[in-house]
């Protein structure tokens, strides 16, 4: 059972997750592009001189949140920045991407700080939801996604910490992650023994399991905002 489950999570599910993520996002965009446009436009004024610059600035600095709530804005920016770095840090494990490799692996994963940042932000988001009025507008999806993220972050951080604090017995060396990820990328999946035999194997599988779930759900939940924000912000600039 465990053998099957761990194999499933490490190999087929990863493929399913990435396929769903990529095809799902493409699908979501196709649905929009096949929908009728509107005859006119829906601008909001005043408009910046450079619409593209204005759009990027708005997407990355979230002025609406800054106006609305400073602490929320702070954690939003923190969370999204940390998320981006962690995502890049994982990509760097997968393939030989020279640009990413030029920065040490440690830096991407922030020597543990990114995990803490993400974890604290997610806890903040969770507790914020429990307060009026956010509690009244929250639905199951909101809590489930935050919990999935939280567990992904938690188990990821545990893995990282073993490496960080030189717990040799527990540690899975970066090299073996690389072997595993690049084997997946090459469509010749391998499960290095340093991973499967580690006492932390179960943590690794849990981390991967939750991460896969997040990727699978990405296109079909509100997480799609990461992609839809750009066309949406351009609507009011047309």
């Amino acid at each position: 059972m465990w053998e099957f489950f761990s194999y499933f999570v490490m190999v087929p599910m990863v493929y399913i997750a990435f396929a769903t993520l990529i095809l799902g996002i493409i699908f979501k965009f196709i649905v929009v592009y096949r929908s009728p446009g509107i005859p006119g436009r829906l601008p909001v004024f005043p408009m910046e001189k450079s619409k593209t610059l204005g759009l990027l600035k708005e997407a990355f600095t979230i002025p609406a949140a800054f106006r609305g709530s400073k602490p929320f804005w702070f954690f939003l920016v923190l969370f999204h920045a940390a998320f981006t770095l962690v995502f890049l840090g994982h990509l760097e494990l997968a393939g030989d991407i020279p640009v990413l490799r030029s920065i040490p692996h440690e830096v991407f994963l922030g020597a543990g700080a990114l995990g803490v940042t993400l974890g604290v932000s997610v806890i903040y988001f969770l507790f914020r939801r429990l307060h009026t009025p956010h509690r009244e507008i929250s639905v199951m999806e909101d809590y489930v996604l935050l919990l999935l993220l939280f567990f992904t972050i938690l188990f990821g951080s545990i893995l990282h910490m073993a490496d960080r604090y030189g717990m040799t017995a527990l540690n899975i060396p970066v090299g073996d992650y690389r072997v595993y990820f690049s084997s997946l990328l090459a469509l010749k999946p391998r499960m290095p023994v340093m991973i499967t035999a580690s006492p932390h194997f179960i943590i690794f599988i849990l981390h991967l399991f939750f991460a896969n779930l997040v990727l699978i759900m990405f296109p079909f939940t509100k997480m799609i905002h990461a992609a839809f924000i750009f066309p949406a912000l351009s609507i009011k600039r047309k």
Partner: protein
Amino acid sequence: MEPEKLQGMKDAIRGRLTKPMRYYLDLCTRCGLCYESCHVIQGIHKREYSPVGRAEVVRKVFRKYFRPSGKFLPSWGEATDLDDRVMDELLDAAFSCTGCRRCVMHCPFGIDTGLIMGIAKVLLIENGTAPEELLMLSDAAVEKGKSIAEFKDGYRSVIYDLEKQVQERLGLPSPEGVIPMEKKNANILYVALAGARSIVNPAIIFNAAKEDWTLSFFEAVNFGQFLGDPEKMKFIANRVVNEAKELGVKEVVIVECGTAYRIPKFMLGPLPFKVTSIVELIHRYLKEGRIKLKEGALTAPVTYHDPCQLGRNGGVFEEPREILQILAKDYREMSPTREFNWCCGGGGGLVALDNENFRIKSGKPKRDQIVATGAKVVVSACENCISQLETIRSGYDLDVEVRYLTEIVAENLVV
């Protein structure tokens, strides 16, 4: 709900799933940043009067019928069936929203809750529970468009009386032709409202500026838009578009009515003529020296209320201010102002409904803003806004005077 009716409802939703709507339906993270941005929830604390609360009423129905989660795990997004209770919620959500789009400014994704309410409105029409008043008014406007010939003579005799008023005010020798109608190839086709004031004051200004203009047979107001019926909206708007094309005018000038301006300006696509608000036109006349105003004629402190459809949604911010700064000795800004200005609570056709108590309460932020300026004269450039500002004034017993911009311009022309 019977299957057939339900199918009609689903089709009605599908008909409104345009590109922007698709984004707006999927995008909301329920972050709640827009929650307080609606004037209605400021006055009446109820979830459905917040932008996200309103939109979620629609989204929950949408999820039910258009998302797998709605079918297999309704609690995932609290998907709800279209039953009578939900229909009532939709009515409450849609016809308490003025479509002011203040919430767009407060949403990190620029989600337009007013647009989402379009779905609620078509569902209400389909269900036969859309507000009677708006149905009747929009049907009357459609009827007038279909049989305009029958209306023409009656309208001409009304205009003849108004011409005398303009003549008197300007001291002209004869009333003949001071309000031209059906004039081919004029520079301007002016579209007024039903009230005499919306014709007389602009006519005074046009005559003072020696403009080559003609008056439309139709009123600018679009009850089809307020009702949320896209077909009627288009028909009502096209009455003027066709009239302008037939007459061969260069420019269509819209009376002080925000929605009437926004529709031809932004919502119909490209048109073979320019669309201008009367406020912009007055400003242009001043710049070109075609009219002159009595400087500092208003001695009491004056403030300006940005009609949402003219300011935030129309981009006309500077013109009214520059006009008022000539007229007023003591001009004061509201706070917040311009694109963040509070909606007065009268837009979206709400002033046409029997809901005065609701509008007094939802006008609370506007009341507070006005009081904070200490102004004694509140000027605006939208008939809906003016009616609602009057409601706020009497509802809160404010010691202010509410004025149309064109009216004070017409009164203070140097002729």
